């Protein structure tokens, strides 16, 4: 079990400002989760906890860490390799099987209603989202270029902006769907 003092040291390494430190802590948690998901094919809370525990312990022991983000990566990579080794030892080299994707009709209907509601809440960004995801192939590329030009930003910046908006929209829809359960 890690001590509160050790966790405090970790937070202080993220930032001297506590609020910012907590934000960075959470952002690192998301990165670690995605890293293991993309590498191993499943949601790996235990691996994330393990990576956090190891880094926190090292900091508590006074190890001089030059770059915290890189250090987190090196620890995560080691945890990943250990998992692979365990899989080999247990002759379990396969990733989890794909999950079948077919939402029940009722849920589909509710999701559409929620999406409608959330889109209406995104008054100023609604048009950007709808236009960004409109069209196919060439038409889609042209539309996105036009959107980027209108906003005087690069296509790459537009992609990131649309991705952030979509994430918020996804969250809003997910939240709204809870009412139908």
């Amino acid at each position, binding site marked *: 079990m890690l001590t509160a003092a050790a*966790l405090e040291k970790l937070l202080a390494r993220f930032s001297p400002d506590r609020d910012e430190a907590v934000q960075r802590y959470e952002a690192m948690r998301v990165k670690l989760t995605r*890293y293991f998901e993309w590498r191993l*094919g499943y949601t790996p809370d235990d691996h994330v906890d393990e990576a956090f525990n190891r880094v926190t312990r090292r900091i508590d022991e006074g190890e001089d860490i030059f770059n915290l983000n890189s250090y987190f990566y090196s620890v995560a990579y080691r945890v990943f390799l250990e998992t692979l080794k365990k899989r080999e030892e247990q002759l379990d080299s396969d990733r989890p099987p794909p*999950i079948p*994707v077919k939402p029940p009709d009722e849920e589909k209907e509710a999701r*559409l209603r929620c999406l409608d509601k959330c889109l209406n809440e995104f008054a100023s960004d609604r048009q950007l989202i709808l236009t960004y995801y409109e069209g196919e192939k060439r038409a889609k590329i042209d539309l996105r270029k036009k959107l980027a030009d209108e906003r005087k930003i690069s296509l790459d910046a537009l992609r990131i902006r649309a991705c952030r908006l979509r994430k918020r929209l*996804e969250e809003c829809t997910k939240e709204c769907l*809870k009412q139908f359960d």
Partner: protein
Amino acid sequence: MAESNDTNVVATRYLLGTLSEEEAAHLEEGFFADDVTFERLEVAEEELVDAYVRNSLSPTDLEQFKKRLLTTPRIVERIHFASALANKVSNPTSLEQKSPAKVVERQPNTARWWESLFGRKLSFAACIALIVVCGLALLTGWIRLRHESEQLAGERAAIQKQKQELNRQADEERVRTELPSNVNGPDRNQNDNQQRVSRQERRGSVVGTMVALNLMPGLQRSAGAKSELRLSPQTSAAQLILMLESIDYKSYEANVENDDGRLVFQKHGLQVNAASELTLQIPAPVLRPGDYTVTVRGRTPAGGFEDVADYRFRVMMMK
């Protein structure tokens, strides 16, 4: 621009697992160091999900997508959302009708309809009369609600008092049953002390660096008084013991959200113990003073999730 396209291609290939180990490690080091690189990967994931929904992945990419990404409930959830979004985008008519601009356009027509039926002055008088009637109805309703809420508050206070009295009696009873252990030698005494610590933990008091709290589904919400989790600067983690009413699922996920609805902690693959409880350990740094909701969902055999129960608690910081 060309560089950005290259980055996107590399990100997509990483997600599909077609980069060499060296290239993958290079990209990973980059996204740990830099948030924008990480966001580019999230964009690439989103675009792969969209391409899957639109059936525009090549057979090889589709194979890799299923093998590498379609193995987590998170991606399945993203696919459901992407399908809904694609549906909306390809069917803009329903959205157009709800757009604020169209609502504004329709207002003058509504006014003309009233005016043509009653005339301008009569319409005005009718509006005033309607406002007065509605106001009276609202006032009556408000008075009735206030009266009912006063009654409810009285009842709640009585229940709370009753509950406190019961707790006090239970504590007294506990002390009475624990006292004789002191005469049974040091070993027995130590064992009893451990049990007391364990009980204290489960009631939400701070013990060492860990604080634990028992939560019942729904109860805290209906009673109005939330269970309190008291953290001190020495607390390193909080352990929530979530009691389940039924155990219909092999595994569960728990989402902890603060009062703003922001997800502060998430845990997958939780297993029920012999006492039909889930144990959720949360690092103390993610908990700030305030109200929290834990939503527990059970994993279905098809890989989806179903809501099981909500729990509420309040975090308080002790000096």
